[in-house]
């Protein structure tokens, strides 16, 4: 070191074995980085396989549906392309061409194959997703396909006079390629008209936008209610001496640790029209036996139960922000003449805003995706978008639509999650 300064010109620092120190440091740093990364790698790979891939695959499903393109035999797994003749006709004729005899002849050939493969239901279902009433046309026509004779156009019209409906042909044209964005349109209550323009679907078929709106509204309401209930008790917990607040904390942590299904069951027991709350109200004479309140199988049930279930997620972040707030600030404000309300509003409340943000975002994100509780206590009008995704997954089996709805929900959540990370930081997530 002394040599270096003695020369007046800084000599490059080296390690004992003569390598430049900077380089060695860099290398050490890189090694440390690699080491750290290697520790994380197994988990990252695990998450990529068991979590990211399945979700990516589901997203693919939302733009890919081969119901009108490919038949897969269930026993042998053999894959047979279907509707190939009509696909050729579509390729040769531009969109909007009126179907002619040639088109119907091609369609007839395809229907014979459908009949043989027992696939008219599958192809019809794909068309039916975009044009109601098509599935029955397909099954009906396939049953008679073998007996049909030229001219085929007449034969088809004989089975169902809607066979020349331009909308039907528009949908078949779209469906004849497996990749499509139409399920996203459907998830937003939109469809394409005959000319391929995007329009709203019939009023009596519009549900998804309404359900997204309801999900948002109920989630905001629930978030607000958890804030309303969570703030006072978080404040109390934060200002009480520790030996009391630790005891009271059990009231927050026990629900947090109790099974979701147990809590939902409890609310069913409480809210039923012959349940504990109604019985108590009738018993106290506040309510006639005939006018018991309907608090379950509707939105009230969903809101009450979810507020209870998500409340700890609001209280815990609030508490962790409130606890370190120094009480002398408020005291100083009071001594300077502020009323207790002003002191709270101007001094205390602003310091708790980060906690409110953290809690509110967390509660909101969790509420938007809720499934179990609305399914059990929500009835028909307390259902959220998740319930509809489950319905399309398990009942209607319109998997592409379920995937499209899920993708929209996921996009919304990821934006909020990103916001959370920006504003609060994932590192600051605390659990009790």
């Amino acid at each position, binding site marked *: 070191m002394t040599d270096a300064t003695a020369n007046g010109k800084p000599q490059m620092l080296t390690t004992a074995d003569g390598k430049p120190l900077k380089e060695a440091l860099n290398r050490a740093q890189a090694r440390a980085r690699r080491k750290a990364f290697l520790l994380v790698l197994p988990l990252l790979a695990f998450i990529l396989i068991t979590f990211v891939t399945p979700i990516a695959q589901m997203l693919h499903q939302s733009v890919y549906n081969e119901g009108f393109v490919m038949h897969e035999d269930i026993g042998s797994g053999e894959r047979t392309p279907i509707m190939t003749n009509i696909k050729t006709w579509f390729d040769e004729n531009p969109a909007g061409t009126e179907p002619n005899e040639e088109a119907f002849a091609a369609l007839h050939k395809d229907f014979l194959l459908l009949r043989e493969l027992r696939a008219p239901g599958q192809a019809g279902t794909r068309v039916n997703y975009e044009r*109601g009433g098509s599935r029955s046309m397909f099954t009906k026509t396939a049953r008679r396909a073998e007996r049909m004779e030229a001219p085929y156009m007449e034969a088809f019209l004989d089975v169902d006079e809607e066979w020349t409906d331009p909308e039907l042909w528009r949908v078949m044209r779209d469906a004849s390629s497996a990749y499509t964005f139409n399920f996203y349109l459907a998830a937003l209550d939109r469809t394409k008209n005959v000319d391929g323009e995007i329009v709203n679907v019939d009023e009596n078929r519009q549900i998804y936008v309404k359900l997204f709106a309801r999900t948002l509204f109920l989630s905001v309401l629930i978030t607000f209610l958890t804030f309303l209930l969570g703030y006072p008790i978080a404040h109390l917990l934060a200002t009480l001496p520790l030996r009391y607040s630790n005891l009271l904390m059990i009231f927050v942590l026990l629900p947090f640790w109790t099974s979701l299904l147990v809590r939902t069951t409890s609310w069913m027991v409480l809210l039923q029209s012959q349940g504990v709350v109604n019985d108590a109200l009738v018993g106290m004479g506040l309510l006639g036996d005939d006018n018991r309140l309907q608090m379950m199988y509707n939105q009230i049930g969903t809101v009450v139960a979810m507020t209870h279930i998500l409340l700890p997620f609001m209280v815990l972040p609030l508490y962790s922000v409130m606890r370190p707030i120094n009480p002398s600030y408020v005291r100083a404000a009071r001594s300077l003449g502020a009323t207790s309300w002003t002191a709270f509003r101007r001094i205390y409340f602003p310091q708790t805003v980060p906690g409110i943000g953290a809690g509110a975002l967390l509660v909101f994100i969790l509420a938007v995706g809720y499934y179990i509780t609305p399914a059990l206590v929500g009835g028909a009008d307390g*259902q959220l978008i998740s319930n509809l995704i489950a319905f399309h*997954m398990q009942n209607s089996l319109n998997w592409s639509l379920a995937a499209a709805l899920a993708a929209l929900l996921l996009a919304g959540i990821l934006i909020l999650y990103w916001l959370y990370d920006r504003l609060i930081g994932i590192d600051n997530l605390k659990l009790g």
Partner: protein
Amino acid sequence: MKLKTALMATALAGVGFAAQAQEVTVMSWGGAYTKSQVEAYHKPFTAETGIKVNSVDADNPATPIKAQVEAGNVSIDVADVEFSDAVRLCDEGLLETIDVSMLPAAPDGTPATEDFIEGALQDCAVANIVWSTVMAYNSENVDGTPTSIADFFDTEKFPGKRGLRKSAKATLEMALMADGVPAGEVYDVLETDEGIDRAFAKLDTIKDDIVWWEAGAQPPQLLADGEVVMSTAYNGRIFNAAVGEDQPLEIVWDGQILDFDLFVVPKGAPNKDAAMKFIAFSTDTQRLADQASWISYGPARKSSGDLVGLYSDGKTEMAPHMPTAAKNLENALVNNFEFWVDMDAELNERFNAWLAQ
């Protein structure tokens, strides 16, 4: 390999040790209905063949079957489904065909094909029971006595919540009948767009008062708990709750909708041979008659009719509680399976949109 196992099993059925390893998974509708099948079919089947029967339940087995087959992940061997679902799933190639010649003849020698009532044998399905969707009420909670399906929709005369199955099937028909359409014309009306609108308009009149149910066990529970005063229900569930558990529940037979339940085998069932054996065993004359002593559903074989006697409590005569009893059939509708095969998906879509509005 499978054939060999089957042969071995048959050869050793008397000894019963090789067969122990075998099992068959049967999916049904849960609650009292599954119980009746366990008592009448599963237990004697296991006792005779040594094949273990796993019983699983679903709200409507047709749905998981379809999902399982389409996802290529079949774990069910036998499912109990409604008529239109059986035909529809068969049309779509999701079911194994069933060879009716394997079904045993009636005790008097009548071949199975003649012994089963009309429509009970299909390409891919064998019926076991005739059941019906009926309206029922809790006599302790209703003021007065509802007598017709129209009363179900009359919330002024009979105030209170109504329970309805969360599905278009049967619900739309009932709405039309309540709106004055005679049973014989229901499907003619429902085939038109105006008819469908009319049915939904009728449902609109009580929409706010409806509690929707999905599992067959729910309506007796909802009625008994007082959550609803009237509900549609599967008739056997109400019978079991009323007679078996002494609940004050009554059935109104006016406007009942008759349907079959049929056994089907999904494509790719892991134990297909055992499944076929189970179906042949369960739908013989004696088993079908036995089932009727556990729940009030009519057997699908004519020869079983005479063997139906008392309920398992040993004192209740079953015959008058059957949906097929003459006095219960006065204004009854037979479910038009062809209509529902074609329209099920579409009407349910409309129904769900209506529900969400």
